[in-house]
């Protein structure tokens, strides 16, 4: 794990962080951050890994669509329909642009989970012969292998377990080290000529560890396996250029990148999307329909059956534009600074242990931790009492928690609007947790 974030960067790579004035302006863009909680406590929102708050431009874009441009897209010849279609497709171009893709490579899905399932079910359909000869590259049969990692969110694990069960393929996985980093050195033995799919996370939603994507892609190419990247945690926080990373497919969700819920995206290399059979079928995804048979529209429409989440897509386009204007290198630099502060904060409190890399290298400002003698739920409750919102539980990654020897953890995760003051408030609340539950610490910093 000697790589740095540099290979992930594109465009402006100087990584100049946000100035104090810029950060204040960012915070002013997010109306919810101004609210107070019970007992008039200010909100310290450290749960952006679960879902981000939304800037006003995103809220306005969704409202503006309904107030001024609402009509059915991709049908109807009236002016309103044309304007609605333009807004919908403009949003696609903006979101695709943020990740270096062309609009034709970006399929709207209801969320990232749906995007993973779309690929898995398309492979299922190909395995049944759907899509004909071009789709044979997606077909699985007994003896084939699907490889995931032990660090996956359930959304990038369970669909592959199910695909394996449907096709007779075998599921294997890359393990993790004690610090939560993936065992990249096992790629050579786990990923073999039998591997047809290599699905892995770009950044762990638990440990914050960033995957050296190039090593995974290189090994997959050696054996001719398709790569599927879970980019949910990377796209909102790092500059991401999916074509440059060389993955075949990638998924990400709108609501974690300052957009609305109800919309996510599947990126697929154009030639793959062209060859992939549809999954959800019906209106809007067809060319010619007779009573006997149907031919399908080219991608991305082939994978967008039925009325789409138009207003959410438009709003996600506004979120992508917002991030683009801030500049992802600046966002990443700001959050790298926060990651250091969060790691220092957790390290400074006796009896608290980080799950994941403790060095601020190749990691996000997502820090999961356990407090000796206090269950994560109780930790979260004490932090909540101080207005500090963190995630508690297994964060939809039970196998990773099991591997790291705990049932649950608490997680502080930053966003572009997170401040040094937020981390200080978190640290102060965390320092009171063990005392509240009657656990004392000795003066040398070790739990008593």
């Amino acid at each position: 794990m000697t790589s740095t974030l540099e290979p992930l960067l594109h465009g402006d790579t100087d990584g100049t962080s946000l100035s104090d004035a810029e950060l204040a302006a960012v915070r002013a863009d997010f109306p919810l951050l101004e609210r107070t909680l019970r007992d008039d406590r200010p909100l310290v929102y450290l749960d952006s890994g679960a879902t981000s708050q939304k800037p006003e431009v995103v809220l306005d874009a969704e409202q503006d669509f309904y107030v001024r441009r609402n009509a059915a897209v991709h049908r109807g010849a009236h002016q309103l329909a044309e304007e609605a279609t333009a807004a919908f497709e403009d949003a696609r171009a903006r979101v695709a642009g943020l990740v270096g893709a062309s609009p034709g490579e970006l399929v709207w899905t209801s969320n990232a989970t749906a995007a993973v399932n779309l690929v898995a079910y398309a492979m299922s359909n190909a395995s049944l012969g759907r899509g004909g000869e071009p789709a044979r590259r997606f077909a699985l049969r007994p003896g084939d292998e699907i490889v995931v990692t032990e660090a996956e969110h359930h959304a990038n694990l369970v669909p592959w377990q199910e695909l394996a069960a449907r096709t007779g393929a075998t599921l294997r996985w890359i393990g993790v080290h004690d610090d939560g980093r993936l065992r990249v050195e096992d790629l050579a033995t786990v990923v073999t000529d039998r591997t047809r799919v290599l699905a892995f996370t770009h950044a762990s939603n638990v440990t914050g560890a960033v995957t050296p994507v190039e090593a995974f892609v290189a090994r997959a190419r050696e054996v001719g396996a398709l790569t599927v990247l879970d980019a949910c945690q990377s796209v909102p926080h790092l500059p991401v250029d999916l074509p440059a990373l060389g993955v075949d497919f990638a998924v990400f969700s709108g609501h974690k990148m300052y957009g609305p819920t109800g919309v996510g995206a599947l990126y697929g290399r154009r030639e793959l999307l062209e060859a992939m059979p549809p999954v959800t079928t019906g209106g809007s995804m067809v060319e010619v329909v007779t009573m006997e048979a149907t031919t399908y529209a080219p991608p991305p429409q082939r994978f967008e059956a039925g009325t789409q989440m138009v207003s959410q897509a438009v709003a996600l386009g506004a979120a992508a534009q917002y991030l683009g204007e801030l500049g992802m290198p600046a966002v990443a630099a700001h959050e790298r600074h926060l990651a250091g502060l969060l790691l220092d904060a957790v390290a400074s409190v006796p009896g608290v242990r980080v799950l994941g890399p403790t060095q601020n290298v190749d990691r996000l400002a997502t820090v999961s931790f356990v407090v000796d003698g206090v269950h994560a739920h109780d930790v979260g409750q004490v932090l909540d009492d101080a207005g500090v919102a963190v995630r508690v539980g297994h964060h939809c990654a039970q196998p990773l928690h099991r591997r790291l020897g705990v049932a649950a953890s608490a997680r502080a995760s930053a966003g572009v609007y997170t401040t040094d003051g937020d981390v200080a408030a978190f640290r102060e609340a965390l320092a009171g947790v063990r005392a509240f539950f009657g656990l004392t610490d000795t003066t040398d910093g070790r739990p008593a």
Partner: protein
Amino acid sequence: MSTAMEQLYQQVILDHAKYPHGRGLPADATAVGVATADHGSCAATSHQVNPTCGDEITLHVDVDTTGAAPVLRGVAWDGQGCSISQASTSVLHDLVVGQDLATVDRLAASFRELMQSQGAGLGDDVAEDALGDATAFTGVSRYAARVKCALLGWVALNDALILSGARTTEDA
């Protein structure tokens, strides 16, 4: 720390969490989901998980069926989880062991009602007196996310009683 926190984590809850009662499954506890019945007794074990946080409780019941009304002779449990789920199961143990099943059901219904009260309590002194230490969980009912923690052991108790055959309907 706020008053709300002190009401949530009352000393009695912290004490039960630290020194739980009835914890530790006997070597002869039945496997989860398997009931045993002898002349005059029946037993079963239930395993319950809170999928949002991974908390787990395995709870074993032993029912004496010799008399006119079946009596819950023993409750033993093991588990891992937050202080609320562990303390609640400990208090459950103290409340229900030695009670006839009709009383157990009444207590379970009262506790469930308490957990739905959003901090208001039962407004019924007799029912609250019967709940004893369990009324300390009134503050928990203010926090919707924690109600499941407090109920985990009670769900296991109800399930184990059904599994054991001592009671055939989910009437608790």
